[in-house]
């Protein structure tokens, strides 16, 4: 029942097969059936969904770029007054810097810790492995928001309240279970024989890992690192709770202050939103082609 591989080599969109009459049965057999979908059945729903996705983004840009009081539906004349105001008066410059610091530190810590642990999970059988995996699973059911009070007390006794370190640790810890599972799956997909070959050539385990496994883990590390960064950039409650001094706060907390202001300045709010969106949009544009392949590597199925 298997078909000739040449069928797959045919140019994928060679046919707008909407008109394919039953008379051409012989060819239909060779074509991939999904190419037979009429074009309008793709473009109409996709177009509608694109509107739903993009109008909110456009709306934010519109409010951020048009002058206060304007009701025009195009951001013209364009102004940057809102950005100016948010960046300096509302201290988004400081928030941005803090968020970047927290994001970078969380990225490094999560990736490093998960790489070590993931290697152990992928390559060894050891006694507490089952217990550890069960712990990872259970931790998924713990509501992070509900851990705020005990975590606050821990950080207070460590004298880490109002230090960015507390947020870094909390973000890392809650990012770890997923990262560990992702990285160990990626390591499992690298054949063990490759490492063994390097040992035969005289490498130690660590050198073999760095030389052979690490380069092959690039997509996995990119996925885990960017999840960690995006997650900590976006997360709100830990920063809200653990950082009370204004010059320590992060972007989401700053946004929340703008939302909660007595008379909401919509232009400033929109400009703040754009500032919050820029880094994640860049990261997203960078990783999105790895996103699908990263997951199809079986990462999600564990």
């Amino acid at each position, binding site marked *: *029942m298997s*078909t000739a591989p040449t*069928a*797959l080599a045919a140019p994928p969109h060679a046919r707008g097969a909407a008109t394919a009459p039953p008379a051409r049965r012989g060819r239909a*057999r060779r074509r991939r059936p*999904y*190419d037979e*979908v009429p074009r309008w059945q*793709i473009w109409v729903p*996709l177009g509608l*969904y694109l509107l*739903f*996705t993009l109008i*909110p*983004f456009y*709306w*934010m840009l519109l409010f951020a770029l048009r002058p206060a009081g304007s*009701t025009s*539906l195009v951001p013209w004349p364009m102004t940057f007054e809102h950005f100016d105001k948010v960046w300096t008066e509302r201290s988004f410059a400081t928030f941005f810097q803090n968020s970047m610091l927290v994001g970078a530190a969380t990225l490094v810590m999560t990736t490093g*810790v998960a790489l*070590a*642990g993931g290697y*152990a999970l992928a*390559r*060894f059988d050891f006694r507490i492995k089952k217990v*550890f995996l069960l712990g990872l699973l259970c*931790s*998924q*059911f713990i509501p*992070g*928001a*509900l*851990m705020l*009070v*005990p975590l606050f007390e821990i950080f207070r006794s460590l004298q880490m309240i109002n230090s960015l370190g507390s947020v870094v640790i909390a973000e890392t*810890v809650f990012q*770890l279970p997923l990262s560990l599972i992702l990285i160990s799956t990626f390591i*499992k997909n690298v054949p063990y024989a490759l490492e063994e070959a390097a*040992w035969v050539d005289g490498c130690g*385990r660590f050198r073999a890992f760095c030389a052979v496994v690490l380069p092959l883990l690039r997509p996995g590390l990119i996925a885990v690192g960017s999840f960690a960064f995006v997650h900590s950039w*976006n*997360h*709100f409650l830990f920063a809200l*709770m653990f950082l009370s001094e204004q010059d320590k706060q992060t972007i989401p907390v700053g946004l929340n202050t703008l*939302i909660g202001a007595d008379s*909401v300045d*919509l232009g400033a*709010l929109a400009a703040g*939103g754009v500032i*919050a*969106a820029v880094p994640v949009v860049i990261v*997203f544009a960078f990783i*999105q082609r790895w*996103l*699908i*392949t*990263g*997951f*199809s590597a079986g990462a*999600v199925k564990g």
Partner: protein
Amino acid sequence: MAQAVARPPGTARRRAEDRRGGSRGRGSRRLPYLLIAPAGLLMLGFIAYPMLSVFYYSLRHYNVTKPWRDGFAGLDNFTTLLTDDPLFWDSLAFSAKWVVVEVGLQLAFGLALALIVNQTFVGRAFARALVFSPWAVSGVLTTTIWMLLYNPATGVSRYLADAGIGEYGTSVLSDTGTVFWAAVLAELWRGVPFFAILILADLQSVPRDLYEAAAVDGAGRLRQFVHITLPHLRDAIILSTLLRAVWEFNNVDLLYTLTGGGPAGRTTTLPLYVANTGIHGHDFGYASALTTVAFVILLFCSILYLRLSKFGGDNR
């Protein structure tokens, strides 16, 4: 003929068995423990210990504003919660409604979207990037964006009213009748890409031959979808709905900032109720009891769901 399209037998399992010999070689006995130690210690210190302290506090009276009552409470907190706290039941019911509606809609739209962008068409990569983009947007940023859209003075409703649809000054967030769906729509906007990405990833692994074989046997697109695509996606759908349900249950960012649980407590989920009790009400003992109950409910529902859906079952 639908039987002929079952998945090829578990090659994954065989590979896992090959790997089992993995711990031989130059692994010292201590190495795995050393490697797992940083992750293990962090999680013991900052997840397990706080969780245990939540269990402990749940058995105590512990209220910063009423220090004279502090002390062992036995099951007092739990009996209050079960018998004498309508807010608990209201928030639990709202949580259930929120999770079911959100996950159901996100799955339906995510599946449809994944099937569409899995087709071959011009500009596919660009279209994928655009429709997946809200995936990276945070709860607070979602609130920001949708507050601009929902705002009664200069939001979308104003321009609709200009065009003769609806009335001026419509505020969907302060109307108890519309606030639920307004919040659902905002969360849907950023939640659909999660499902679409996961399902699309799994769609890539459906063997093309199966569709060709089915087409030769005269199965139309609908039958191909029902007999090939859906069975193949089964485990991915079960797992992603479960992960998402737990996440939607626990996540408070969006509702906390968009509605604050209001108006009139109409959108208070259980975690929001806990946050209000513990952080604003300073009643840590009672908040801990609520947390414990939420944890048990989540764990129980998850196990039940995996059992009922026979995860990883028959066609493996």
